[in-house]
C-alpha cells in the first residue's frame, strides 16, 4: 500500500512536471558515464542547457558497448516527449531502428562524436573529423622525422572490432605519414614494409603498455608509434621506459584531454590531435533549442556529410607548414 502511494505521488509529480515542461527539453545519451570524454561532454551540455533554459536529461550506458541501456534511454526520452536527442551510440548499426522511431515521432536526433551507420540515420552528426585528426599527426610525424625511409611504425589501435573512429584515425595517420592505405575502411591490409605491426590497446593505459610490449617483441627497433588515444600513449611510454627506449621513439596520439596535453609538454607524446567534446555537446543543445523553436535542422559542414566540430594539432615541437597549437593553447581548450 505504501509502495502504491509512493508510486502515485511519483506519477503525479511526473504529470505535473510534464505539464510545466512546455519549455524545451533535450536528452543526452553517452556510451558510458565514466570516460572523462563523456563526463566533460555532459558538463558542456548541462552548462549550455542552463544558459538557454533548456531542460536536459542525461543517460549513459553502463559500459562502452552497452547497447541495451541506450535503447531503453531513447525509449524513455520518447515517452518524455523531448524535442531532441543527442546520442553517442555504442552500436552504430543496431541503434538505427529505434532512432528511426524517435525521428518519426518528430524528435530531432543528433549523433555526437560517433556517426551512425549509415550516417544519415541521424538528422545530423556533430563530430571530430577523425581521419583529419589522424592525418595531422601522421604529417607531423613524417615532417619531424624528415627522411621516413628508415621509419619502423607500430600502431596501437583500440580493439579487433575495428570501430569506425579507430579505423579513421589509423588510416588518417598512415595517409598523413605517406603510407598507401589500401582499403580505407579497415586497418591491417597495408603492405608497406615500414609497418612493423598493428596491436591493440583497449584505449587505456594498461592495454597501451601491453600492446607496446607486444610491438617491441615483434620488432625491437620500432621508432614511430601511433596510438588511438592518450591513455594508450601513456601506457606505451611506460613500456618503452621500462626497456630504456623512451628517447628513441616518437609517439603521436589523438584526443586532447588535459592529461594528454600535459604529456605533450612532458615529452611523452610528440603531438596530439585535439578534439572538442564540450563544443560538440553545447552545439548539440543549441541545435535542439533552434529546432524546437522553428523546426530548423542543422546543416553539415561544406564538403562533408557531418558538422565538423574542429580539431587542433597540439605540440611543443612545431614543424613548418602546419597550423599548430602550443601546449599552453592546448591546455586552455583541453577536457578531462
Amino acid at each position, binding site marked *: 500500500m505504501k509502495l502504491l502511494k509512493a508510486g502515485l505521488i511519483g506519477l503525479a509529480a511526473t504529470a505535473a512536471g510534464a505539464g510545466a515542461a512546455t519549455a524545451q527539453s533535450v536528452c543526452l545519451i553517452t556510451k558510458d*558515464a*565514466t*570516460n*572523462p570524454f563523456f*563526463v566533460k561532454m555532459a558538463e558542456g551540455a548541462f552548462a549550455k542547457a542552463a544558459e538557454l533554459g533548456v531542460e536536459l536529461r542525461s543517460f549513459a550506458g553502463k*559500459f562502452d558497448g552497452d547497447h541495451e541501456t541506450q535503447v531503453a534511454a531513447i525509449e524513455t526520452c520518447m515517452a518524455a516527449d523531448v524535442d531532441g536527442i543527442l546520442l553517442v551510440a555504442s552500436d552504430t548499426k543496431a541503434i538505427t531502428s529505434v532512432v528511426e522511431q524517435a525521428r518519426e515521432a518528430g524528435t530531432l536526433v543528433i549523433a555526437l562524436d560517433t556517426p551512425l551507420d549509415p550516417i544519415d540515420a541521424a538528422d545530423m552528426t556533430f563530430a571530430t573529423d577523425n581521419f583529419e585528426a589522424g592525418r595531422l599527426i601522421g604529417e607531423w610525424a613524417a615532417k619531424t622525422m624528415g627522411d621516413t625511409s628508415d621509419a619502423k611504425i607500430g600502431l596501437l589501435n583500440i580493439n*579487433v572490432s575495428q570501430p569506425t573512429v579507430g579505423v579513421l584515425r589509423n588510416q588518417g595517420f598512415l595517409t598523413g605519414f605517406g603510407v598507401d592505405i589500401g582499403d580505407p575502411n579497415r586497418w591491417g591490409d597495408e603492405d608497406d614494409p615500414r609497418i612493423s605491426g598493428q*596491436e*591493440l590497446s583497449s584505449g*587505456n*593505459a*594498461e592495454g*597501451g*603498455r*601491453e600492446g607496446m*610490449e*607486444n610491438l617491441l*617483441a*615483434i620488432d625491437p627497433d620500432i621508432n614511430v608509434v601511433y596510438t588511438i588515444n592518450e*591513455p594508450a600513449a*601513456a*601506457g606505451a*611510454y*611506460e613500456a618503452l*621506459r*621500462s*626497456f630504456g627506449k623512451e628517447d628513441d621513439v616518437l609517439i603521436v596520439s589523438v584526443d586532447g584531454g588535459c*592529461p594528454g596535453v*600535459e*604529456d605533450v609538454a*612532458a615529452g*611523452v607524446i610528440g603531438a596530439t590531435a585535439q578534439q572538442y567534446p564540450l563544443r560538440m555537446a553545447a552545439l548539440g543543445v543549441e541545435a535542439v533549442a533552434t529546432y524546437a523553436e522553428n523546426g530548423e535542422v542543422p546543416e553539415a559542414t561544406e564538403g562533408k556529410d557531418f558538422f565538423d566540430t574542429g580539431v587542433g594539432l597540439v605540440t611543443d615541437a612545431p614543424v613548418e607548414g602546419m597550423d599548430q597549437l602550443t601546449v599552453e593553447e592546448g591546455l586552455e581548450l583541453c577536457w*578531462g
Partner: protein
Amino acid sequence: MQDASREADGARPGEGVASFETTESIGRRIAHVFYAAPALVPLFVLLVAIAIFGILLGDRFFSPFALTLILQQVAIIGIVASAQSLVILTAGIDLSVGAVMILSSVVMGKFTMDLGLPPALGVFCGLLCGLLCGTISGWLVADWKLPPFIVTLGMWQIVLAANFLYSGSEVIRSQDIAEQAPLLQFFGRTIEIGGAVFTYGVILLLVLVALLAYVLSQTAWGRHVYAVGDDKEAAELSGVNVRRTLISVYALGGLICAFAGWALIGRIGSVSPQAGQLANIESITAVVIGGISLFGGRGSVAGTLFGALIVGVFTLGLRLLGADVQWTYLLIGVLIIAAVAVDQRIRRASQ
C-alpha cells in the same frame, strides 16, 4: 568412478576380472597423484605450451626477454588471482577483487597527490582500504551467512561506484607521480639480468605465491582454510573457528588486492580509475585453469600461478604468430572447460 570403470571395461571386453582391476587401480593411482598435487596438470600444460610456441617462433619467443615479458604481463592478474585462490579454496568466490584493487590504487594516488599525505602514509591508507573492503565481504559471508557470490556481486558494484564517485574518472599522470611520490611506482622498478627483465611487481607475485603456498600447507590457519572449503560443518565440529577463518580469508584477499593496486600503479605508471575492469573474470580464469576446484578445499596457489602464466603464454605466443586475438579467447575458453572437466574426473575417480 562409474564412468571410468565402464570405459576400461569396454576397452578390454575379452580380459578377465583380475586384469580389469589392475587397470582401474593404475587409473586410480594416477588420479590420486593428481588429487594430491593438483598443480601438476597446469604445470604440464604450461611447459607444453611454452615448448610448442618455442618451436613455432624460435628465438623471438624462447628468449629471456619474451619469457620475462610474460611474467610482467601476468603479474597483476597473478596477484589478484592469488587472493581469488584463497577465497575459492573456502568454496566461495570474490567478484569484487578488481574493483577493490582499483579503489585501493585510487586511494593511494588521491591521498598522496591531492591530500598531500606523505607517500608511505598514502600507500598505507590504500592497503587499509583493501583490507577494509575484504573484511566487510568476509563479515557478510561469515556472520550474515549470505552467499559469497551475492555479497561480492554487491561489493563489486559498491566499490566500483565509490571509485568513480571519488575519483571523478580522472587519471593521475605518471610524470606527476614520478615527480612527487615515486614510492607509488615502486613495483614498476626493474632488475635486468642478461636480457631478462624483472619488475618488482613480478618479484612481489613470486614472493606472494611462495608465501601463500607455505602458509596454506604448513600452518594451522592454512589447514583450516582447506577444511572450511572441504566441508564447513565437519570443520566446525572438529573445532575449526569457521567464522574467523572466513573473515580472515576475505580480509587477506582484500589486502592482497590492494597490493595488486599498488603494483598496478607501477605497471601503468599512472593511477587510472578505469583500469582493471576485467580483473575479476581474468582472476577466476587463472584460478580455474590452475586446477583449484570451485567446490573448495582442493587445489594450490602454485597452480593459480601456472594458470595465469598459461593465459599469458597463449596471449603473447598467438600475438607473435600474428593470429587474430579472438583465437586467444577461444583457446582460453576451451582451457577453462577442460580444466573443470579434469577436476571433476579426478574428484570422482579418487573417491
